[in-house]
């Protein structure tokens, strides 16, 4: 039997309103809005107008669909994780395989949309923040494809724990700027990107990587990711003959979670559960469980939950997962939490790593550590719901980038060693530390510039005029 499911296309997520729109100024209930300097308002207004226009623009929508089919590889498959289910009280676990998208995560869904929008706005330069590096890699990829200049801000701590992705971004021609302020993680990368944007907004579009930030980002980024849930809903109905009992996703800023949740918002029988980084346990204070432990406030342009102290100073988050290590969260999740339509639970580093190992060994799928939080959540849900349950998991990314972290966690290698060294193979050519002459030569081809930028990645600081 050949199946034609799913029929949904990426453009459906933006063409057809979801029925859960914010108000005119981007408020989801009391959350969202725009808490940004006046200097950025004109650019946000322009973005809103252009975004509204392309929602009905056949040419744009066709181009987006074509790219997602031929370049991203959509639709992404739905995989039955039978053996994993045995560890989840016998529940049937279905994995939505966003890890199989080109560049290895769901992030490309949003990035291709925003990169095409950048072209529409006549801007030539793109900036982005990245935590795990997946959004940075996706952005660098889209910029290579569409001939846009690309600058990626990444916390210095993250450039170390996700070194593979730093190398990928540089190979793709992007400039990666390690951010050395604050906690030197995702939050600070966003601060630096905002500083760059306010300075260069005439020429530059900020491709924000999650459903946070000022209006229209939370709505627009969500819509670009709605395809995840639209496809998955069709696939589950086709495969199982009914809706799932629960949908599980990890929550950093909340983009992969909102992307899969949205298609089920109007299905009251479907439980929507977001799994936040519990780090070393919420009781230790070392975590990033914003919705579980935070309180409402304004950060990075929107009102939402955030981790803050009594004076409204942002608290530093912590997670083994760079992509979830963020003290804020998108405003629509704040509303879903308050409404009780979705619930949010912390998953510790240890639980996530256990799920990481389990999925690797039972199904032959190495997940991103971010996504391993969702897998751990599904195990929890399965044990709670029992063997008849059907649980849909957003497997938001693949784990190649995390091999070093995991090998270290499981004691497979020593401090200071890398996984590749420990297994006796050489580190990949073109690593940022120092490409061999041969690699630089073959990569650079005729252009000296390319060789130069690979050999000596730019390390400047941005924006300021001191």
């Amino acid at each position: 039997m050949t199946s034609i499911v799913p029929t949904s296309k990426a453009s459906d997520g933006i063409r057809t309103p979801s029925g859960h729109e914010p108000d005119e100024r981007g408020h989801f209930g009391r959350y969202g809005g725009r808490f940004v300097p006046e200097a950025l308002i004109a650019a946000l207004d322009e973005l809103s107008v252009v975004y509204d226009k392309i929602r009905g623009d056949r040419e744009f929508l066709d181009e987006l669909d074509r790219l997602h089919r031929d370049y991203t590889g959509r639709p992404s498959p739905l995989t039955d994780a039978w053996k994993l289910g045995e560890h989840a009280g016998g529940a049937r676990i279905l994995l939505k395989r966003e890890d199989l998208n080109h560049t290895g995560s769901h992030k490309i869904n949003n990035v291709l949309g925003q990169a095409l929008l950048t072209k529409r706005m006549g801007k030539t330069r793109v900036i982005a923040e990245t935590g795990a590096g997946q959004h940075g890699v996706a952005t660098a990829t889209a910029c290579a494809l569409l001939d846009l200049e690309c600058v990626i801000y990444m916390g210095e701590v993250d450039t170390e724990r996700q070194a593979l992705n730093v190398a990928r971004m540089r190979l793709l021609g992007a400039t990666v700027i390690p951010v050395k302020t604050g906690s030197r993680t995702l939050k600070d990368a966003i601060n630096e990107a905002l500083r760059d944007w306010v300075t260069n907004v005439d020429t530059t579009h900020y491709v924000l990587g999650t459903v946070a930030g000022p209006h229209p980002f939370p709505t627009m980024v969500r819509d670009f990711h709605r395809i995840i849930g639209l496809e998955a809903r069709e696939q589950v109905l086709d495969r199982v003959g009914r809706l799932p009992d629960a949908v599980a996703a990890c929550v950093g800023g909340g983009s992969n979670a909102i992307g899969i949740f949205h298609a089920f918002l109007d299905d009251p029988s479907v439980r929507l559960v977001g799994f936040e980084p519990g780090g070393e346990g919420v009781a230790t204070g070392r975590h990033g469980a914003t919705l579980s432990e935070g309180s409402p406030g304004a950060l990075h342009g929107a009102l939402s939950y955030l981790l803050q102290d009594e004076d409204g100073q942002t608290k530093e988050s912590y997670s083994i997962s760079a992509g979830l290590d963020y003290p804020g969260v998108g405003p629509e999740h704040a509303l879903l939490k308050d409404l009780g339509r979705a619930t949010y639970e912390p998953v510790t580093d240890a639980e996530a790593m256990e799920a990481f190992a389990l999925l690797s060994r039972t199904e032959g799928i190495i997940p991103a550590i971010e996504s391993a939080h969702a897998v751990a959540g599904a195990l929890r849900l399965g044990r709670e719901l029992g063997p008849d349950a059907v649980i849909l998991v957003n497997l938001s990314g693949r784990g190649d980038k995390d091999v070093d972290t995991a090998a270290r966690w499981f004691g497979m290698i020593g401090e200071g060693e890398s996984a590749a060294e420990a297994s006796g193979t050489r580190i990949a050519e073109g690593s940022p530390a120092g490409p061999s002459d041969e690699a630089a030569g073959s990569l650079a081809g005729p252009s000296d510039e390319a060789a130069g930028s690979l050999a000596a990645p730019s390390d400047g600081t941005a924006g300021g005029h001191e």
Partner: protein
Amino acid sequence: MSVAEVFAKAKADERGALIGYLPAGFPTVDESVELLKALVDGGCDMLEVGVPYSDPVIDGPTVAGATDVALRAGTRLRDVFSVVERVTAAGCPAVVMTYFNPVLRYGVDAFARDLANAGGLGMITPDLIPEEADEWLAASEAHGLDRIFLVAPSSSEERIAKTVAACRGFVYAASTMGVTGARDTVASAAPALVARTRAHTDLPIGVGLGVRSREQAAEVAGFADGVIVGSAFVTAAAQGPARVRALAADLAAGVRDR
């Protein structure tokens, strides 16, 4: 003296008003009080007391570095109110400059009440636009505080009109697209922005972002009602109150040279 009176006095003297910024708690709470007083001794007409914040996205390295020092030294919001109280008790008119989240967290009305009780005259809010400011509009009415929103070179006419309509005391014209920091030249967008703003309001207009020299102060005072200086004072503060006083005197001469 009210904010309106500060500007009226400068106008009567046929000069620009000089407004000096330093963060509360930098490098310590006590020293910040001395530094702020030195600004006024040197010739500033009004103080802008900065509230240190963990994520200062519109500040360049100089101011962000200083507020980080203040936070690491343990500066709390209650210290900000005490700094305001001490400088205003010494006769220096003062407003605070704050990102909005500390205000939200404290409670907008409670913040306004405590600021007014400390003698503060108003609040400059660099990441708050009037559309999101309902609570602050009400609290500022209730506690008699001035509201200083910002206009920028990228602001449309419509937005300038809306923003100045929400302001009281003065209007802050952010002269460049960018973050705070001293610059060598006065931004070319500044005069046009002030002229566009002037068309929509009789309120005084202060220009900030980048001024550091007497010549620049004179130039800005030539087209604006107030000259706002921050990063240059923060840099000077590293060398103590005497250096801050001297720079203020130099800039105060500038706003009289126009």
